[in-house]
């Protein structure tokens, strides 16, 4: 790995961590799971002068119930998320999306905050976080703020985070009514690939079983995750029947703005992202209906 003058620090508070990042006069990076960062360091695409390991800060490795929803610390690894029954009951789509990131080994380290801040257009967990309308909490030199997940990435490798700012947690909202989410991605193998395209759908059902609210997000078909409001509008008011889902598929395909690359053609991505959206919507609907059944 790169030259030997990199410093590694493991502060015990967020404020201290933010200060270290802000004060650094070279390239400084936050280290949580490190599953993207260490790969970039090995490839010499980045040579940080300072790594700030946030795993020793209290709360960073915890999942806690908060305001009816959930707070997921910035360094919680995917494996921990998958094991959390409460989170899984409320946000099965977010949990399955987090589980998509890398292998079992990567799951032992990789965090959804890292996945978000790496700002890859193909990030596995981001469409589900956007569909869930998740927010992130951020601490920086000027204090603490929070913002919607969708506002973080602005392009491949680029985020809106300011110098010295650290994302400390993902906040998943409380579920209102009966709802569920689902996330699917397309890859050529069954595991270990970067998403060729992906889709996450989050639906809420009213008492009659109609969709009362929905969010649909697409991954790897644009420089950033796409929130497709037109797709959500199609779902709202429907019973998520076959015809509706087929319209959803077509709208999602149209909304996609993919490129050709080594992982797939634009044409393929446009077509398949619609399929993923339709299937994810059906899965979300099935989950929500099952929950309605449990309550009834």
């Amino acid at each position: 790995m790169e030259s030997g003058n990199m410093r590694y620090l493991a502060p015990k508070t967020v404020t201290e961590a933010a200060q270290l990042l802000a004060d650094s006069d070279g390239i400084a990076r936050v280290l949580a799971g490190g599953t993207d960062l260490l790969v970039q360091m090995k490839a010499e695409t980045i040579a940080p002068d300072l790594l700030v390991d946030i795993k020793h800060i209290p709360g960073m490795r915890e999942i806690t119930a908060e305001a009816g929803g959930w707070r997921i610390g910035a360094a919680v690894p995917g494996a921990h998320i998958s094991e959390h029954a409460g989170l899984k009951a409320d946000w099965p789509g977010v949990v399955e999306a987090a589980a998509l990131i890398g292998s079992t080994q990567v799951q032992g380290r990789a965090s959804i905050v890292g996945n978000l801040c790496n700002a890859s257009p193909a990030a596995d967990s981001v469409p589900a976080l956007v569909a869930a309308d998740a927010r992130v909490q951020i601490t920086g030199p000027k204090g603490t703020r929070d913002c919607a997940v969708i506002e973080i990435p602005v392009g491949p490798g680029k985020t809106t985070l300011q110098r010295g700012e650290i994302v400390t947690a993902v906040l998943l909202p409380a579920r209102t009514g009966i709802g569920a989410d689902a996330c699917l991605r397309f890859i050529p193998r069954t595991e270990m690939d970067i998403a060729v395209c992906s889709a996450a759908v989050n639906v809420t059902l009213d008492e009659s079983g109609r969709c009362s609210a929905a969010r649909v997000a697409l991954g790897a078909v644009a420089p950033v995750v796409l929130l497709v409001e037109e797709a959500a509008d199609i779902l709202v008011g429907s019973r998520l029947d076959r015809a509706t889902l087929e319209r959803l598929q077509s709208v999602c395909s149209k909304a996609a703005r993919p490129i050709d690359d080594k992982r797939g053609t634009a044409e393929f991505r446009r077509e398949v992202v619609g399929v993923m959206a339709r299937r994810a919507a059906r899965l979300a609907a099935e989950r929500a209906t099952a929950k309605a059944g449990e309550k009834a």
Partner: protein
Amino acid sequence: MALDEYEKRDFQVIGSRPVRPDGIDKVTGRALYGADAVLPGMLVGKVLRSPHPHARIRSIDTRAAAALNGVRAVVTGADFGEIRKGETRNVAENAMAFDHALYDGHAVAAVAATSEAVAREALKLIEVDYEVLPHVTEIAAAMAPGAPVVHAGFVEDSVPDGFSENVTARHEFGHGDLEAGFARADKVIARTLKTAATHQGYIEPNACLASMGPDGRGDLWCCTQGHYFVRQLCAEIMGIEESRLRVTASEIGGGFGGKTTVFVEPVALMLSKKAGAPVKLVMSRNEVFRASGPTVSSEIDVKIGMTRDGRITAAEAELRYQGGAFPNITVMFGAMAAFAAYDLGAVRTVGYNVLTNRPKQAAYRAPGAPMAIYAVESVVNELCEELGLDPLEVRLKNAARKGTKSSYGPTFNDIGLVATLEAAQAHPHYRAPLGPNQGRGLSCGFWFNFGGNTSVSLSVDMDGSVSVTEGNPDIGGSRASIAMMAAEELGIPFERVRAIVADTASLGHNDVTDGSRVTFAVGLATIKAARAAKKELCKRAAMMWGIDEEAVTWENGCAKPSGPNAGSFEPLPIEKIARKSPRTGGPIAGHHEVNAEGAGVSFGVHLCDVEVDPETGHTKILRYTIFQDAGKAIHPDYVEGQMQGGAVQGIGWALNEEYIYGKDGRLQNPGFLDYRIPVASDLPDIDTVILEIPNPGHPYGVRGVGETGIVPPLAAVSNAVSHAIGTRLYELPMSPPKILKAIREG
């Protein structure tokens, strides 16, 4: 005659499944691979590689790098300037560019330093002045008139006038009257099929530890399939006699043909020589993909004529392979193997080797055969579909068998193709029902199998246990099979035999572990060495008993009088004879040196079921069964393992593996993330059926089994996908975008 080697017998050890002798070390982490060795004072070597696919190297300034604290040596092509000619020159130029960088990743300089960090820093200080030249990475473009000349001076006299200078050789095989054959056909189909370049994908990157003394004597530790060949190449490159260089083969973390040559070894030796200290040089995965030896990509025209009742009347193929910037003979193997499974009255194949700005190809399991047979087996299936014939019946009808004049010349002796086809036909898999979007495919496969130069030394130790010293790195469990053959021949338990792989100074020459030759050739030599030792053991027993040597026979690990006339003595076990050996003439051993001939060809048939997602083009392998002739399976577990491993490599080739070059001539996917080899969750069980049609050229009937298994999957999967989606693809890999496109275009 080698043909008469085989004799039928009942086996005690052969065919059983003992624990492999290297197993414990491998499950405990003790086994030492290429990158695991250390020496005191060892330096770290690192290689600077060209970012350009084709460039003239105007100059290299290494002064700043050499001046960096901790840098102990720098080498460039200038250090390798005195290599004479032929393949060794090519190997040297591939290991370190002389005056031209010929592909993305071609080595242009290297350093040895006290740490990896210093070595990396030093590479950044090397200034290479490149004159970037036009490049070409694809076959058709490289063959086109006016194509950039990749590497001049390799055109053989076999190439007719009018070809681009990138076409270096033409190979032709066949017999019979094609025109008359095609005229007799009821249906003729001609197609062009393409396959992408793939990599062996061994998990252990190429690695070595070199130590050259100031007296010109050296030691080299490396992961290789053939350390004698490594010695030959490196000694010639270093300008020293072979005996001055001792090469030790480490445990090898996969080779599949890719480790039959050298890449970093000469560089490490040169660095060590200049630094006066040992140098370890380990490739990164990125370097492995960019600058070791992937296999060829291919374009193949196939034309086959068939009668309404399924008899092939004529068959023709033109094969065009590219294997990078240096010549190779892989297309020749393809041209020889393409129609090997068929009994044909009229057949012709022509192969062209084409140079491109890609890394120098190396062998990959049955080199040249998978793509050729993929093309043929695809067209045969298409004919069956067009004529409404059962593809297995058609193959049986046309199958090569004993007495068939093969498409590459010789007449086949005992071969197992018909038996494997019949086994497939009788298997429940062939008749199992299929669901929607599912399809079944089959394909034949073939490999020649090699014999070759082999030395084996077998010593009976003082307690009667036995050491077998062989010289072929164990890539698939050969120490187990070699020890089993020694135990069988001596009539002693497997556990009393230990087989080791010796370094180049400790045993006579051995050819590379290639061509599925080891169980056949080293096994043959081991059996002969054991027979020599048995003869000596009998002689010693005769001495102990005071009877005539000819009156002693060997049975179940003991010397026995050969009959009542010989005298009445209790059987004398090997350990008693061994203990007394100092009194009867000294140590007891046997050895055998041979250029083994008579390797028997191996045929296989694979059945594959797939399900294709019609909305995404994703293919799932549902069921897979292999039928292959092993001659005689020495250790059936590892015979199955060879078949399964080969099949899965072929499945990867069929579905997702490919070298992807950008317009800029750079490799786009030099890592396991985007070079997609099959993972455990991609696959079902891989079932195996071993057929045993003895090879007359081996005492136990052994045929090589390592390579045939990679051949059938390409067409078996493709035929299954075609069956599932109702349309055919003519290109590998059948990645989802291609399948979806084929479905849409129907």
